[in-house]
């Protein structure tokens, strides 16, 4: 097994280094992260059922990415959410905030029992994230495509201050219909913000149906490449390859993980179905979903999560 100092250096044709991949992760770690992803999914189901409204498909589909980011990749301190040198994550497709809230709860940013207050009067878990309301939220969101610019501003600030922290930003694929996305990509590309990592939740759905019917994005990889990004296509549910993709260091360009995900992943009757974009499970559906997830966990999961 690779130890934590193993580094793979990618060379360009002229033998100059183009990037590195750090191969440091153990099977035990992977299992932990997989288990964490299932916890996050369970939280999401519980929150949404209690809330009676909210976005299921994207929240479930990205749980593996959130687990990987918050429990392996990012430098951050839930006890000191304002730590100056922390890595920062901005959720631009902010409607899937249940997965972010669940992740922050699992990480210990706030008491987990609060997850049942989602979308209720007085809750810190607003229907869409409100910066300042809850520790760990780097940005407000709701109107699509605003987050990527905010993230670019965070990255630019780090650049000005010569800081070494990284900025991560997730966008939805439907969200990429918005012009602001392309404005931001031009800017990030121009400034070669290699402290910036974009994650595209390529789940092929948006509200009105499949993205390639509503507003086709293909060839998306070509688009992103032509905007100056190093594009890594990755299975959004394979934590090992996600880690490798996040860890791959690109010296000259900002990076984008074009993460292929299954909307509703983990809950059989939600998978691949656009109609679950913005619907919560009812009580019965939630129970069914939770039992599916438990099965998933007991199959793969030898680890009990300490935060439970």
């Amino acid at each position: 097994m690779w130890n934590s100092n193993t580094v793979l250096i990618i060379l360009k044709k002229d033998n100059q280094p183009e990037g590195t991949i750090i191969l440091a992760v153990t099977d035990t770690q992977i299992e932990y992260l997989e288990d964490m992803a299932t916890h996050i999914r369970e939280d999401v189901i519980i929150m949404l059922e209690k809330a009676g409204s909210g976005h299921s498909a994207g929240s479930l589909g990205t749980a593996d990415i959130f687990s990987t980011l918050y429990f392996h990749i990012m430098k951050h301190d839930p006890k000191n959410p304002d730590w100056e040198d922390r890595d920062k994550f901005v959720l631009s497709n902010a409607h899937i905030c249940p997965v972010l809230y669940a992740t922050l709860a699992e990480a210990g940013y706030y008491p987990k029992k609060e997850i049942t207050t989602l979308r209720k009067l007085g809750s810190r878990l607003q229907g869409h994230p409100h910066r300042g309301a809850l520790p760990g939220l780097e940005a407000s969101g709701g109107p699509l495509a605003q987050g990527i610019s905010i993230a670019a501003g965070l990255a630019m600030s780090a650049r000005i201050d010569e800081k070494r922290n990284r900025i991560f930003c997730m966008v939805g694929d439907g969200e990429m219909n918005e012009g602001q996305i392309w404005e931001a990509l031009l800017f990030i590309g121009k400034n070669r913000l290699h402290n910036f990592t974009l994650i595209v939740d390529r789940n092929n759905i948006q509200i009105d149906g499949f993205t390639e019917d509503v507003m086709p994005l293909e060839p998306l990889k070509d688009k992103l490449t032509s905007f100056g990004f190093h594009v890594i296509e990755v299975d959004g549910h394979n934590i090992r390859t996600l880690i490798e993709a996040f860890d791959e260091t690109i010296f000259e360009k900002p990076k984008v993980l074009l993460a292929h995900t299954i909307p509703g992943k983990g809950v059989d009757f939600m998978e691949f179905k656009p109609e679950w974009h913005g619907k919560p499970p009812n009580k019965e559906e939630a129970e069914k979903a939770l039992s599916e997830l438990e099965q998933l966990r007991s199959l793969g999961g030898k680890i009990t999560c300490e935060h439970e």
Partner: protein
Amino acid sequence: MSKSLNKKFHLAENIFDSPDQVPARNGYGEGVVEAGKADDNVVVLCCDLTESTRNADFKEAFPNRFIEIGIAEQNMAGIGAGLAFAGKVPFISSYATFNPGRNWDQIRVSICYSMANVKIMGAHAGISVGPDGATHQAMEDIAITRCLPNLTVIVPTDYWETKKAAIAIAKIDSPVYMRFGREKIPVITTEKTPFQIGRADTFRNGKDVTVVACGSLVYEALVAAEKLSKSGIDVRVINCHTIKPIDEKTIIKAANETGAIVTAEEHQVHGGLGNAVAEVVAKNSPVPMEYVAMMDRFGESGEPNELMQKFGLDSKGIVSAIEKVLKRK
């Protein structure tokens, strides 16, 4: 039914008992289909929100006249203008926070300055959209459209009026902004209630004070008036569905005859109906006013009725505003 209700508006009989509850957006959905039947040039554009903006029926009925734009409100406004220049009557549709919020500059120049015959539909307007929270609660859309020359601004009060308004605006050749809410609200008008763009309708006669309201607050105003009539206070209620051009005559008359005005709207206090009425009143017949509106703060998540109550956007809030303004008369 209260005797003070103005007969000529044929308001619903069950208005104070158990009025029907229907979302205003349904009225839009049905109205735009009617408009489409009446005029082949009517086309509908939508930004990935076909179902919730109630455009699904139109899409079903006229698939070739429904244009999916994806999530690109700026582009939608411009495409709408181009279609209008070519003789179409486009309804461009999204949530009111994004349309006109995300495409304001396009609405200003491509549509209003160019007199493009585009109908801008702002769905999920107001705080009553509820749990989605502040970002999705359009509370400034009247302010940012009322300031635009050439634009008519309409805030219908219920299901029927929204339906009639959708049909009526398709027939005029100029840009219109119309907002309506997501939630079920009381149906206070009936099929027979007359609707005319630009005319404020005095739903309830009264001589002590006037409430000028729009949208869902008209119902709350009627309820408030009914309550106060028991204490002998005679409240006039005006349904001011057209915010622009505003019906100055009806408002001035009310100012002169009742000597005090309360405005009520599901919108920020700055720039909305309250300002429109204060502008007219101060210029023509200054009287004391009070505003029932969002007091310059963002909304938050919660159930629609919880929020309306929390921010005083209900009959109770109107009653106390009336009591306040009467003391200043």
